[in-house]
């Protein structure tokens, strides 16, 4: 516990005693708390402490300012993000786990029928992130099924299927996992209140992701029982009607909410997405309910129905907003994000012919992939005006104090043109970007950190980043080796994030 936390707790105990003394003597709290002898805060000492803190603050501000003048700042710590160490070996049989080294930090494991013994995971004591997939339904599970996972000392992130044969008792076993903070459940059955009551026992659970399955209002309300939960993601969960989503208002600790695959979206369906039909997505009524959450600061919508009115009904204090894979959202929805004047992190994408390669449908025929004169493509033509969306996105970058931009697919010209003016933009994350994007982001004057995921570029393209304030480059699944990138960019720390 930090020293300041200790002081806060001590003061709380003093106040608690004062309140109890007032109750025991049957007098108002003010009679006890207002008494100068009661609370152990000598005003002189308090002023002295405040002056010391002020002086310390001035000195630190000066030091930081000096440091900033000589080098651009890095993005702040990201301890709130789930760790995702690379590489991620995938195995399909328990026998293959034995072939992994003890230093394996990340693992994907497909749960086969009949393999109800997870004890083969036990030697992997360095495992931080464990993804378990279960493509086949299993109805009978041994009572100590998850004990081997709970015994893994370093596991912070766990993705797990919840089969019909698994009960709250199984989930309760995870309470023994000392570091488990991020839990993702692939629901193969309806999530029950008993399951959530079992999750209450997990001492550090801060993030819960629910995928598939069904929930109801009672289940959502029960999520408020989780004592440390501050982020929630609902992904393709059935039963998320407006009334059910409105119950999110009871999750008073919630800081981050992610909604994925909810609500009818005709364009998205034409692009091959499937949605939860009985949901409305983020409607104004749902957004109004979310506005009651006092700590909510981050919202991520992916493939989620949303309107501009709903965006405007959200609390203006949001600092992070992500709007991706929402092809039905027009320029009015993007423009509505100006409703958040303190927005620092912005996640966006756009739609074009090339992008369809990344969607679930089969790749388009070659004549659609080639550039050149427009080719008739009814799917793309049914999308909202993409030019207007790009202009609205560019306008956001001009008007909002965005420090971190996450963009999926190649940057549109309008967005790229704003980067030289984006003086507050220190971090850019590109996913599925192309070589031209590297040249565009190199023009951002304050760029300190660049993260490239699955981007198509060569070593020569990195030359554009020379003589820029860039201090760190991270690649995930890139084509350029870490060593080559480091050699091309002296002075830049190159990592695989």
């Amino acid at each position, binding site marked *: 516990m930090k020293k300041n936390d200790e002081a806060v*707790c001590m003061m709380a*105990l003093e106040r608690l005693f004062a309140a*109890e*003394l007032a109750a025991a003597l*049957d007098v108002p*709290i003010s009679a006890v*708390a207002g008494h100068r002898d009661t609370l152990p805060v000598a005003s002189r000492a308090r002023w002295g402490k405040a002056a010391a803190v002020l002086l310390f603050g001035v000195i630190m501000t000066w030091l930081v300012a000096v440091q900033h003048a000589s080098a651009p700042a890095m993005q702040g710590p990201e301890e709130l993000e789930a760790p995702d160490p690379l590489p991620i070996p995938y195995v399909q049989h328990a026998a293959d786990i034995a072939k992994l080294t003890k230093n394996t930090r990340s693992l994907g494991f497909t749960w086969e029928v009949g393999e109800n013994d997870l004890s083969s995971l036990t030697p992997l004591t360095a495992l931080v992130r464990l993804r378990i997939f279960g493509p086949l339904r299993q109805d009978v599970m041994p009572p100590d099924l998850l004990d081997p996972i709970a015994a893994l000392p370093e596991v912070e992130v766990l993705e797990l299927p919840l089969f019909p044969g698994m009960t709250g008792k199984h989930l309760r076993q995870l309470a023994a996992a000392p570091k488990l903070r991020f839990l993702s459940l692939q629901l193969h059955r309806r999530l029950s209140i008993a399951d959530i009551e079992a999750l209450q026992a997990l001492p550090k659970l801060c993030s819960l992701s629910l995928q598939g399955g069904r929930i109801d209002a*009672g289940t959502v309300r029960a999520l408020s029982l989780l004592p440390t939960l501050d982020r929630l993601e609902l992904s393709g969960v059935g039963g998320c009607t407006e009334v059910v989503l409105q119950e999110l208002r009871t999750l008073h600790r919630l800081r981050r909410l992610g909604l994925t695959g909810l609500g009818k979206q005709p364009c998205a369906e034409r692009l091959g997405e499937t949605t939860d039909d009985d949901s409305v997505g983020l409607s104004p009524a749902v957004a109004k309910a979310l506005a009651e959450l*006092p700590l909510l600061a981050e919202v991520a919508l992916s493939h989620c129905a949303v309107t501009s009115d709903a965006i405007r009904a959200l609390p203006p204090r949001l600092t992070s907003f992500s709007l991706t894979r929402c092809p039905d959202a027009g320029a009015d929805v993007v423009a509505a994000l100006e409703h958040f004047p303190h927005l620092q992190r912005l996640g966006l994408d756009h739609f074009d012919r090339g992008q369809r390669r990344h969607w679930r449908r089969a790749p388009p025929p070659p004549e659609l992939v080639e550039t050149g004169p427009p080719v008739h493509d009814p799917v793309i033509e049914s999308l909202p005006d993409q030019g207007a969306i790009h202009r609205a996105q560019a306008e956001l970058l001009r008007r909002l104090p965005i420090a971190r931009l996450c963009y999926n697919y190649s940057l549109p010209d309008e967005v790229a043109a704003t980067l030289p003016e984006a003086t507050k933009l220190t971090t850019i994350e590109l996913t599925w970007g192309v070589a031209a994007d590297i040249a565009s982001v190199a023009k951002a004057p304050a760029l300190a950190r660049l993260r490239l995921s699955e981007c198509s570029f060569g070593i020569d393209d990195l030359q554009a980043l020379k003589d820029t304030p860039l201090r760190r480059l991270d690649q995930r699944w890139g084509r350029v080796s870490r060593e080559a990138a480091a050699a091309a960019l002296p002075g830049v720390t190159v990592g695989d994030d």
Partner: protein
Amino acid sequence: MLNPLAAVPAIFRPTMTAAMPTDRPAHLARLQPHAEMLRRYLFVLGAGVDRLDDLVQEVFLVALKKPFDDSGPSWAAAWLRGVARNVLLRDRRTAASRREVELVHEVWEQQCADGSGDARIALLQRCIEGLPERSRALLQQTYAEGIGRDELAGRFGMRRDGIKTALRRLRAALRNCVERRREGER
């Protein structure tokens, strides 16, 4: 007559009660017993004594507008504390001060195992009853009657600073007594 909600799990009841027509005065009467607990809770969370009544009023207003669970006083009290915490958090602008509220809430949860803190007050009352007559009188006159230190010094035949020291020792003794009794109950 049987309660039609009796067979319904408690977690579902708020919505059902919300759908029913509510009797406002009766609803308020159900809330009123929680007022003292809420004042204590808000004060511990850091609310100023001059704002306690306003904040409790605000909590009750929310409770009147929103579904209110009638399935038991402890459930209702927990729900009201949740509302109270949110009311207080809305006033906290910085993340650090919000975090402090959450931290202090955990202190409350830890110290007041019964939720309301009534058990601790009962223990404190027993501790006060066990004090010598002179000490009880000092407590009473200091806090209940609001008598100043100078006058108390005259009444108790002590120096002004002696009163201050005696009160400090008295509070420490009472806190120790409560902790000892809590330990004894475990």
